[in-house]
């Protein structure tokens, strides 16, 4: 009932842990894997990156602004960490990659032979030359995906940024590059200023907005992408309960990723999956039957 298939990945339920959320340690990934359909590890690049200094996260009413800065131990080290996870979970492990160029991207998959799929982070809004810098450029998006597709047989997902005039153009570029699915979306460019110190709160000045506040915005991205793409869409942004998931599915997503909701509880995913299960038991439907339904006959 809750099973979904994305490319050749079989998920027992459509709720996936989003990248960067509790995703740097095998122990927390293992814990979240228990209930989620799949997990995405924290984005990793070729070399180690320090990330920004604290404060890197600001929680506000309904939203979170973060600029962690793609802190990462680098592909080699991180591969060791994730290998520990691989031994203890049977859930699909999606490895999220960041890089400055298509060449760098194509050097990464080899480090992660145990990955079930790769997600290209073309969308981090707060790391110079990385993420969004690529994700706003149709050609770069296409090239990066192509480059990764050439070096791996695993499914490759493109995680898109919403900070563009027309996300469908980027989605189409990803599809043309050979992406097996798009993930929509990463965070929205944001800033927060402290009125007492009169300075930006985050050490990096600007960050990305996530959490409930962005749900109607992320949902709009999924809606628009569904109207133009043939490849599956994985929704992400502000999901905190099963109804949110159903909204995303009706808008056209086949699965969803959950991030900021872990602020409320470690069992965020568990609760969502249970709610979905109850809902579909009640309606007697399979999740796949709901995909994109809201587009029909409006």
């Amino acid at each position, binding site marked *: 009932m809750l099973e979904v298939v994305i490319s050749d990945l079989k998920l027992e339920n459509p709720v996936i842990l989003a990248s960067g*959320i*509790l995703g740097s*340690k095998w122990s927390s990934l293992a814990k979240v894997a228990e209930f989620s359909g799949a997990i995405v590890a*924290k984005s990793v690049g070729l070399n180690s990156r320090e990330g920004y200094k604290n*404060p890197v996260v600001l929680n506000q009413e309904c939203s979170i602004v973060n600029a962690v800065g793609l802190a990462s131990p680098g592909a080699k080290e991180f591969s060791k960490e994730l290998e520990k996870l691989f031994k203890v979970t049977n859930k699909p492990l999606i490895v999220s990659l960041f890089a400055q160029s298509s060449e760098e991207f194509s050097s990464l998959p080899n480090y992660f032979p145990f990955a079930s799929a790769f997600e290209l982070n073309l969308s981090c809004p707060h790391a110079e030359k990385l993420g969004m810098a690529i994700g706003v450029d149709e050609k770069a998006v296409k090239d990066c995906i192509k480059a990764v597709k050439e070096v791996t047989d695993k499914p490759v997902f493109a995680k898109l940024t919403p900070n563009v005039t027309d996300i469908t153009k980027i989605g189409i570029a990803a599809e043309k590059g050979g992406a097996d699915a798009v993930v929509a979306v990463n965070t929205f460019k944001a800033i927060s200023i402290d009125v*007492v110190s009169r300075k930006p709160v985050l050490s990096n000045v600007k960050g990305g907005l996530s959490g409930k506040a962005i749900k109607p915005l992320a949902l709009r991205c999924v809606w628009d992408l569904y109207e133009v793409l043939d490849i599956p869409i994985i929704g992400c942004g502000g999901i905190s309960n099963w109804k949110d998931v159903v909204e995303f599915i009706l808008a056209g997503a086949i699965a969803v990723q959950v991030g900021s909701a872990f602020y409320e509880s*470690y069992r965020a995913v568990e609760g969502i999956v249970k709610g979905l299960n109850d809902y579909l038991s009640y309606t007697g439907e399979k999740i796949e039957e709901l995909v994109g339904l809201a587009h029909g006959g409006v």
Partner: protein
Amino acid sequence: MYCVKVAEVNKMCRDVVEIVFDRDLRGYPGQFVMLNVFGYEEIPLSLSSPKSLTVKGVGKTTKALLNSKKGDVFGVRGPFGRPFSLPSVDEKVYLVAGGIGIAPLNYLYQTLKDEFEVIAIHGIRCKDEIMYDYPEIATDDGSAGFKGNAVELFLRIADFEEKMRVYSCGPKPMLLNLYKAMKKRNLLDCLEISLENYMKCGIGICGSCVTECGKRVCKDGPVFKGIDIIF
């Protein structure tokens, strides 16, 4: 984030100050705040009373805090995390602090002292590090109180029984010794330990504070029950 103003700074010993704010931070004993020291970093600090933090200068930010003075303004997120649970009326309470681990335990002590029989132990290196006057002191060099560490003193004076409650915070090796001692006596469920770990978000999403057993110190802790941790 909101801002708080310093009402008073008390020097506790050479490299420890107690920073008292002009308002209650509305937290429980065991909870911590993410303190944004403008121009430096944002760091986790336990409440040492409803309106104070007690800080030891160990690095850039904490050393800057040693020089804080009345009127200074800091940013605060929180209080966050799981507080100490309260003992039952008939339980005998032990606090076992090591070094700056006295911070959260002081708040707990102030909360419990009028209604419970509380034995507070503070282990430090030498008498120059004495911060508060109520605990039984254990010094490594014997320059004050008991000669030895906090756990040794605790083992000496504690009545081990099921109606006891042991709260602890301090360096990892000390916590480990205490944990073992309680485990041996089958009293792990009488033990609560406040852990520390490197923190970024403080709200349970970034994963930097996660322990080997997959628990988030910021959200699932910092206070853990003895039975819930695997050292």
